[in-house]
Every structure is written in C-alpha cells, then in structure tokens.
C-alpha cells in the first residue's frame, strides 16, 4: 500500500508506504505530481472520491486507486491488487473466449443455413427442369405411339 498527499496546486506534499512496489519511483516532495504520476493527468482536482479499480502502472503490479479530496488537498491511496489480478484475469479471459467461440459458432451456423437454403433452391430448380423434361418426353412418346 502507498499514499500520496497532494496540495491544491497539484504538488506532492508528502508520501508514505511502499510506492516503489507499485511501480512509482523517484517521488520528490514539491514536484508536480502529474510529472511523475502520469495517470493523474487531467484527473485533478476532484470534488468527490474517485475509485480506479485494477490500474496497472507497470507490467508486474496493479493497484486499486482511491483519490480522496480533503480540506488540505488530495490524498491518493494505492492498494496493491496484484494478487487479485490473476484470478480476475483468468475468469474474464474464459468469459470472453466463450463469447468469441459462441460468435464464431453462430457465424458458421448462419453460413451453413445460407448454404442449405441455396441448396434447397437449387434442388427445386432441378426438380422443375426434370419435370419439364419428363413432360416433354412423355408428349413426344404419345405422339410417336
């Protein structure tokens, strides 16, 4: 976990915890926070509590971020969510994979349906032609007899 305290001008007043474990390095008191914490660009100021779930700042780590306005500025709390990430990712992956497979299945069924319809139409045409040929031949036979 880590916390950052930012003043009304967006400058870092203080920080604590283990920000380096969440991919936040080189924090310096007095620096403009968006220079170091890019994800806060455009975010500040906030009037209500803002929660950003599963925010990945680097490849290895992920955090639930709470941005909390206060009379003395803004507090940014970062809770390590790395251990929650993998199970969540696996579950979502399965859901999305199933959705994709289902879509592909429906597309294939649709294509099959279209082919069946074309086949039926072609069969109807074939039967029609055969009937006419038979009728024509029958007519010739009658005349010959």
């Amino acid at each position, binding site marked *: 976990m880590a916390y950052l305290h930012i003043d009304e001008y967006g400058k870092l007043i203080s920080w604590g915890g283990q920000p380096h474990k969440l991919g936040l390095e080189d924090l310096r008191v007095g620096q403009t926070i968006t220079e170091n914490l890019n994800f806060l660009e*455009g975010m500040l100021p906030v009037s209500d509590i803002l929660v950003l779930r599963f925010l990945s700042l680097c490849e290895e780590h992920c955090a639930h971020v709470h941005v909390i306005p206060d009379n003395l500025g803004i507090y940014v709390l970062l809770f390590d969510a790395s251990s929650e990430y993998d199970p969540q990712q696996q579950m*979502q992956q399965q859901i999305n994979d199933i959705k994709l497979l289902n879509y592909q299945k429906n597309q294939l069924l649709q294509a099959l349906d279209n082919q069946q319809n074309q086949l039926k139409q072609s069969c109807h045409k074939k039967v029609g032609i055969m009937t006419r040929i038979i009728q024509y031949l029958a007519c010739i036979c009658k005349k010959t007899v």
Partner: protein
Amino acid sequence: MAILQKKICMIGDFSVGKTSLVGRFVRQTFSDKYLTTVGVKIDTKLVKLPDGNDIKLILWDIAGNDVLTTVTASYLRGSAGFLLVVDGTRRPTWDSALNLRESVAKQLGKKPFVMLLNKADLREQWEIDEQMIEEQTQQGWKLLATSAKTGMNVEEAFLELSMKMLET
C-alpha cells in the same frame, strides 16, 4: 519548458485489439495471442508532431466492454480524446462502438476521437461494408483502417488524434 501531456482513452468492445494497438504504437510489438485486459493499463509515449512540437500521450487502455459501466466511466475522467476501436471482422463491435461513443459523449462532453477499424490484415473477413463507413464519414467522423499486426495506420491514428486534440 514542460512538455504538453494529454490523456487518451482506448475504447471499444473486448478483443477488438486495443491493447495490441497500444503495444504496436509504444513498443512496436504484436502477439496473436488474445489476453483480456482487466481494469486499465497505463502507457506513455512521447510523440513528435508534424509541426515539430512534442506531446506526451498518456494512454489508458481500458478493458473492453460493449457498454459503459460505472467502473469504466471513472477511467474516462480528464481524457482529452479517445480512440474508438472496432474489430472489422465482427459486426457487433461496430454497434458497440456507436453506443459507447454516445455514452462517452455524455460522460466527457464533446471530445475529439478517431474511429479505428482494426484487423485490416483480415480484410477479406470483414463484416463492415463501405456503406457503413461512408455513412459515418458523412457525419464528419474520422475513420481509419488499422492493423496492429502489420502496423498499418497505427502511428497515423495516434498522430491524427493528437492533432485533433491540439486543435480544440
């Protein structure tokens, strides 16, 4: 002088290629394997614009969804523009994109965006026709056919949006 920074959100249904587009743009990499994004991934890239100025793009690669959820909406705060991504091979992702664009407009107000018709390397499998594209173009939308796989129009897409953001 501090470099200008702008936040950009990647928006679109799942598996349309948002993460791949960011990967291609930022790291020049691509993988065929589909890995679902959970939450949001932040990346940055310094871009040199045609006018010679530099801009630092803060890219928010947001987990794909066909609707704008409360969680997703919180990620949009402070965004200067967005890329609306569609998988050309899946027609429903086009419909999702149109709905998402409306929801985002309600959330952010009028912000510049570019619609990306991704997976242009699979053009023969596209379920999006020229008429659909033409209709959106006539409404003043900027659409680009992209491929994260080949890199086609990826750089151009981010540059186009950057220019649009600076115009506003």
